[in-house]
């Protein structure tokens, strides 16, 4: 049994629900035990760092401090989200490299009765854990429905293989880990030249033209290499390429249709798990055709209806009040 402290990250319960569900589905066959870090908070993504350094690192370090307290037979924290993984690893690394930063962060943590000594924990990504701890042999042994004939473009995105402080990955530019994993599932893996290129990150929000071009390049390259499907390990990449592919098509007048799913989803179906349980159907660019290539039918979920009358068809919550009374507007999870 491989056991890890688990930092899911915010998107796992939202935009990357398919990732979370498929991860849960492959846990039993892989004997992967995950213990969620009690009361973890958001890592701040790439946003907090832009505002204020010490609070940004303190925000991240609160999670590390909680995890270090919780150590329950393991000192490894596994984060499936690239941005979370990078932020946790970065805080651990920089607090040691720049002792002044470590001191300040601990001064802040002390205000909450917490402390973290850099180096206490190992921060690792899910793919790393699967390949290096569980092993490709084990993965292969669990495959009952090989993905034979499915042309997969492995797309890692930026933040896992770079900057890679702990030197865990085979390469910054063309790492082989995701390729190897997909091959173990029996898929036909294309030599995807943009496998670590950028998806646009938060530029979909603040500078869409920049983002659309990056998305276009990726989708175009996948199509040029005749991929049936792209597979990723990053919620942000999946979100940008999936949810904004339509926007991108509109922007450029193109007609790309390149589904992108999480690697765990393909693992799950290869392990014989029902596609629905593996989170298929949650993608906006449907993977139906791709799955059909390996003889699978995906139950279609409710199709997004066309916007009704008014363009502002999105249900609008009220603007955030200045102060929140505790618990009022907050859902129970």
């Amino acid at each position, binding site marked *: 049994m491989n056991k890890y402290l688990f930092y899911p990250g915010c998107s796992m319960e939202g935009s990357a629900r398919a990732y979370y569900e498929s991860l849960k589905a492959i846990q039993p066959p892989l004997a992967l035990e995950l213990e969620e870090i009690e009361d973890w908070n958001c890592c701040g993504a790439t946003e907090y760092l832009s505002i204020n350094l010490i609070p940004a690192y303190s925000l991240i370090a609160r999670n590390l401090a909680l995890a270090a307290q919780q150590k329950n037979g393991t000192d490894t924290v596994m984060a499936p989200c690239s941005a979370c993984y990078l932020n946790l690893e970065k805080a651990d690394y920089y607090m040691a490299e720049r002792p002044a930063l470590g001191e300040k962060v601990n001064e802040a943590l002390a205000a909450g009765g917490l402390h973290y000594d850099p180096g206490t924990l190992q921060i690792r990504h899910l793919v790393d854990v699967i390949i290096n701890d569980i092993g490709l042999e084990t993965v292969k042994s669990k495959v009952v429905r090989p993905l034979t004939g499915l042309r997969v473009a492995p797309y890692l995105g930026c933040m896992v293989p770079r900057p890679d402080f702990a030197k865990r990955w085979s*390469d910054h530019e*063309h790492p082989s880990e995701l390729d190897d994993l997909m091959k173990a599932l029996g898929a036909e893996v294309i030599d995807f030249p943009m496998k670590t*290129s950028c998806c646009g990150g938060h530029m979909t929000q603040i500078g869409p033209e920049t983002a659309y071009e990056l998305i276009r390049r990726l989708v175009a390259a996948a199509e*040029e290499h005749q991929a049936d499907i792209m597979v990723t390990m990053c919620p942000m990449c999946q979100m940008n390429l999936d949810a904004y592919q339509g926007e991108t098509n509109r922007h450029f007048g193109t007609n790309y249709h390149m589904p992108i799913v999480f690697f765990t989803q393909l693992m799950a179906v290869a392990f014989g798990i029902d596609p629905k349980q593996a989170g298929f159907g949650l993608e906006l660019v449907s993977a139906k055709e791709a799955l059909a290539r390996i003889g699978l039918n995906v139950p279609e979920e409710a199709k997004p209806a066309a916007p009704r009358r008014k363009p502002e068809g999105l249900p609008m919550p009220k603007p955030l009040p200045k102060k929140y009374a505790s618990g009022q507007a907050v859902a129970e999870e």
Partner: protein
Amino acid sequence: MSEKKPKIGVYVCHCGSNIAGMVDVEAVRDWAQAALGQDGVVVSRDYKFMCSSLGQELIEKDIQELGLERVVVAACSPHLHEKTFRTASERAGLNPYLTELVSIREQVSWVHTDKQVATEKSKALVSGAVHRVAYNTELQPLKVPINPNTLVVGGGIAGIQAALEIANAGFHVYLVEREPSIGGHMAQFDKTFPTLDCSACILTPRMVEAGTHPNITLLTWSEVISVSGYVGNFNVTIKKKARYVNEELCTGCGICVEKCPQKVIDDVYEAGLGYRKVIYTPFAQAVPKYPVLDRPNCTFFKNGKCKACEKFCPTNAIDFTQEDQYLNVEVGNIILATGYDLFDARRVTNYGYGRLPNVFTSLEFERMSNAAGPTGGEITLRDGKTKPETVGIIHCVGSRDKNFNNYCSSICCMQSLKFAHLVKERTGATVYEFYIDMRTPMKAYDEFYQRVLEEGTLFVRGKVAEVTNATHGPHEKGKLIIQVEDTLVGKQRRIPVDMVILSVGMEPRHDAKQVGQMFGISCSSDGWYIERHPKLDPVTTMTEGILIAGCASGPKDIPASVAQGAAAAARVLDKILQKEVELEPIRATVDESKCSGCRICNNLCPFNAISFLDDVGVTRINPALCQGCGTCVAACPAGAISGTGFSNEQIFAQIEGLLMGV
């Protein structure tokens, strides 16, 4: 310490302003006279340049007139001038080992910023030396005869040059080369910069001369496997790998090569771009001319059948029963001209070498442009046919980059310019050069740069970010895209080309460290062998009798390598002609009356100088083998081993002196 103090003279050097600028030299002088008088100092002087002949005469005069018994000179590092001052003392009749040099330049004035503190530290160092020198004893250098034979390791241009110089002077040389032929990297090149001489044309005569010289024993396909002994008297074991060709009988006719049915990729000479037979001479001009049989790939050795080479050999020179031979040779000096490895361009994954077919390394390009190479001198894409219309040449691949090698490989700019010229000349293609800085400092080099500019090569100042086949649109289809910031424009550019040449840097040999350890020399943090002095003594090492030449000590071009080969030879000849060498008399000795035979020290000496005499139950040290490290001296629990030059008494006294007044 009641014994009578010897008379000591203290001399403090200004070194112009090098010392005097940061150390109050007069204050040190006066303090030595006043405070160290009780420790035997009878005279203390300062002088502008102590190492000048006038400065030395000052010391000599005092020795003779004041009857000085010890001398302390506070100046620069002993590694620079210890010999100078010891020789001066000797001229005045004082045993040289009674003179000590204190470094108040390298260790004080050059590295500190507060004059008062620097002056105080200088006083402490002088005090240390004064206390120490009282316990110095008269020593006589050990003289050992020099074996006139020389071993040269590495048959590239530097090694060939060194071997020829020594052999021409009438002394014997063993020239050992790991590959089947001498010639080294230079034999692989087509043209040499900046003159565009044909590399083979200028190298071959030297190779032939080395191969036929009566004073040179050429041992190719051979490796040194162990070295023992010391300067003047090295004992070297050389493994002569089995060639499966009897050199006595072989005429080098080449019929065996012709008849051999098996072809393999030639990763060494052809840089993986061409093929060779299993029995082969790496190239037409190879020296020696005898082929080598590549056993792991040989059909006979694999399947027990074939022997085509044997059948067709007109002189019965093929010998499948040949085994590796081990030769023992005795030499007085060793020159390491072991050269360099090329940086493995696959490590820069963003340049795509190994993944993108039309990305080539500089050595591949050399072979391709060579008329004797795999394409007969045609410059083509990897398909072997298509001529490139646009070519990008990337500088500094693996060099000047903290992710790979920090240093500048020094030859790549010129090599890249040469490539640009050759591409233009042979294909008329559009050529881009991508550089960080152009470095063309030697004779006629910058003129060559001017010439290549004139030829219309397009220079882009920027380190290439990536070479990719991921296109941004139809206009890039089927091309390699070089993505780079044109730093002089301040914009990112994507330049589509057909062919990319990576000007890869030089690296220390992959086994440089182990080889260095075998010969007792060390590598810098970059992995190159360290010279005794980077400017003034570039071809000798810290280990007497071991010299280095060519790229073994760092990247060099051909003229520099040749100059170093000759320089190393000159240093060796100097030693040989002296017939004997003086060794520092720093040695350990055992007081047998104190030795209890506990044998603690018996496993400590890597030079086998320590032996245990079973009959009398004591340990003895062989002074000829002892190298003077002092490890056994420090180890002896009974205090029975003492070391000359660095005795306990000297060190204790130095500690006391250094800490006087603390």
